[in-house]
């Protein structure tokens, strides 16, 4: 748990922003998500140097450098792996992972499964816009099968990947859906995810107004989920497989203990290790 024994500091969200100007297009949903993350961190109250944000490649993966926290902007699809290593080596840090649908569900899909399963205390924030934006408009695993693009004329004709169901099946301990157009609600969900022990997954509908201008309509489609979170993954999966994809809120909050490596109270020395080799 990240919030045990931490003294809240009186830091404003602005204290978590860096001076670097984002490369995003005007109107991009990720501006609001950045804002929500800094608000959430202000709510959590740990200073920026005790927080690390890890990402892969893509528009939304640029977020670490736009914060005043420690950041690791690594290679495409491997953010969860890098964050897992960081958290296990440095359990004292609050570790967030940010990225997009291509980074997390396509090239990084295997790490997504195993991060859910492993349940290390991380918070994974995915900005899902159903498109590869940085490479200028190719279909991602969450793109509708009939969406026309240069790379897949007439559509991919491949069914979409359902990240929340996959997360539930793979064992994520906290699963929520948010909408970037509601930065305050999103901030509250992210803060809740950070506080929840184990692997927390927040899928954020974050429109790409450049390549998916029709996503501007999302703001009229989203609504608060009619029911609160459950601790039953089967019920949660049923709900999320039968809704229209626009219910916002915490879907599932589990109570599985996070993975924490065993540490000896009184470690042995290197000389103790040598002894086993001596003839």
């Amino acid at each position, binding site marked *: 748990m990240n919030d045990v024994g931490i003294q809240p500091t009186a830091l404003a969200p602005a204290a978590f922003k860096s001076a*670097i100007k984002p490369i995003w297009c005007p109107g991009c949903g990720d501006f609001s998500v950045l804002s929500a993350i800094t608000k959430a961190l202000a709510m959590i109250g740990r*200073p*920026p*140097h*005790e927080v*690390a944000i*890890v990402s892969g490649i893509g528009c939304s993966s*640029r977020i*670490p*450098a736009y914060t*005043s*926290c*420690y*950041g*690791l*902007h*690594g*290679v495409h*699809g*491997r953010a969860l*792996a*890098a*964050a*897992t*290593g*960081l*958290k*296990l*080596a*440095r359990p*004292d*840090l609050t570790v967030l992972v940010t990225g997009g649908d291509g980074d997390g569900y396509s090239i990084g899909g*295997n*790490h997504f*499964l*195993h991060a859910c399963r492993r349940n290390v205390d991380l918070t994974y924030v995915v900005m899902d816009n159903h498109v590869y934006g940085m490479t200028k408009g190719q279909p991602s695993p969450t793109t509708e099968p009939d969406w026309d693009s240069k790379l897949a004329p007439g559509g991919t004709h491949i069914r979409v990947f359902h990240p929340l169901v996959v997360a539930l099946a793979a064992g994520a301990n906290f699963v929520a859906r948010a909408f970037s157009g509601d930065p305050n609600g999103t901030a509250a969900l992210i803060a809740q995810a950070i506080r929840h022990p184990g692997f927390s997954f927040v899928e954020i509908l974050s429109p790409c107004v450049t390549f998916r201008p029709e996503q501007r309509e999302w703001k009229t489609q989203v609504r608060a989920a009619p029911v609160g979170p459950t601790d039953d993954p089967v019920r949660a999966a049923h709900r999320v497989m039968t809704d229209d994809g626009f219910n916002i809120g915490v879907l599932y909050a589990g109570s599985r203990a996070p993975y924490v*490596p*065993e*540490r*000896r109270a009184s*470690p*042995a*020395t*290197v000389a*103790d*290790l*040598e002894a086993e*080799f*001596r*003839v």
Partner: protein
Amino acid sequence: MSDGIDRAPARGALQGVSVALAGSGGSGVMTAGTLLLAAAAKAGGYGLMVRTSGPQIRGGEAAALVRLADRPVDTLGDAFDLLLAIDWGNVNRFADEIPLTARSVIIGDSDEGEPPAIYAGTGARYLAVPMKKTAKAIAGAWVNMVALGLVGALVGLPRSALEQAVRADGKRGEAALAANLAALAAGYTAAGELDPPLALPRLPRIAQPRDRWLISGNEAAGFGAIRGGVRFVAAYPITPATEMLEWMAPALARVGGTLLQAEDELASINMIIGGAYGGVPSLTATAGPGLALMAEGIGLAVASETPVVVVDVMRGGPSTGIPAKSEQSDLSFAVSGLHGDAPRLVLAPTSIADCATTTQWAVHLAERLQAPAIVLSDQFLGQSRAIIDPPVDPGVGAERLVAEANAPDYKRYRDTESGVSPMAIPGTPGVTYTADGLEHTEAAVPSSAARDHRLQLDKRSRKLLNFDYGDRWADIQGDGDAAVITFGSTTAAVREAVARARAQGHRLRLIALRLLAPAQPQRLAAALEGVRRVIVVEQNHGAQFYRYLRGHFDLPANPASYHRPGPLPLRPGELHRALADWNGEGRAAR
């Protein structure tokens, strides 16, 4: 004892004996070989045991190849003095790996028939011994213990040393131990009753044993890593590196570290980048296929200047290749297999003991220079077990240049004179930054500007090129105007071949590189001063080391190459003949 200088050799010729113990699955030959080595250790001697087996996961035919000697041995001999087979099922498979001569002896079980023609045809003398009958006469006894007693006696091991080894291994309770000791005694006695008596080369009595370790190369590499300060490991199982991880998992837990089994090698390299970014010295171990998967991640370590150590226990390649056999064929990939201009450290241990020293040094260099270090071990070093002198402690560990809290005008990738810039460790206030695989400014802001790219490329290259690696970069031995250059596990066979050539009056220099990248052309030039002829020895098909040396160093004119692929190890006699050919002696030397 400095690393750059030859270990003082024992006086006189090496005294020792080579034994192969073979049999089908479940015959217990690996246990017998392990205990034979352990008994030699108790008796004060040195030795090496190489395992070989068929492709079955469990229960296939197997052979323990054991060489015992009065001094450290890191290579098998040219031929075996004794082949003992508990049975002959599929043991003919090992004919290439168990060369015999007319001076060799074959012992088989009386009930198992004659040895296969491929062995019998060597002219080796054959003796049948009723090992199974002997074991059957003792309730609960295993035939491999009869074999152990027989072989132990024939190679001159004291009975007490064999008993100590069996007792130390006792996992099955008192009754089983008593039966095994009885079987051992029966085998030992049978050796003295052979008719006609058998006189094999023996391990001489060691009056005053030195401090020695019994260890495999994989264990040694893991130990060196921990002694160097590694406290986080993430890795994916792969032959022949897995035993290194299996040794490290409990060992790391004991010293307060963590080992995590990753979902794949893409994860393991990025996990250790995460751990190292967090300030904890981190390592992964793999083999060729895993190294290939890690290439992008190693590039991230280069660009983000994150220290990581990757131990590649090389096996036959390409692709899945020959997983459980040795080859030095990942060299080209290790020194040049990343995209972009990506300076990295590449090191290779020259012996089982040196797996500890070199891995520890690699941890030091990676941390000191904030760069990835690849350690090229191989299956032969990794999976062989040896009695060694305690590995040299280079006395260096993880010493990373870190940023102070609230350092004024902190820039993570500042263009310092050495090229190494202070690294802020998460948790340190006032110096936060984002480590990046994107090209960046000194202040770690992503940049595609020509000036920034050039500056950072220069910085990352300079920090490796300008570092003083000291004498440890190579083991240099001998003088003369001809030199043999090698690296890694072939060093031991080359050393024995050179010793034989010297005994015939040749003056030869032996240069075994431990630091392969960055290339040290000035140091090699100094090492080659006065040398007019050079031959490069390595175990791969493409002469990778030879080509690498020709690309990066000024060698004397017309350098020669002796290279061949695995899976069979380079043997001293083969290399001695190659040196003779190179010296223009041709077949006369054979």
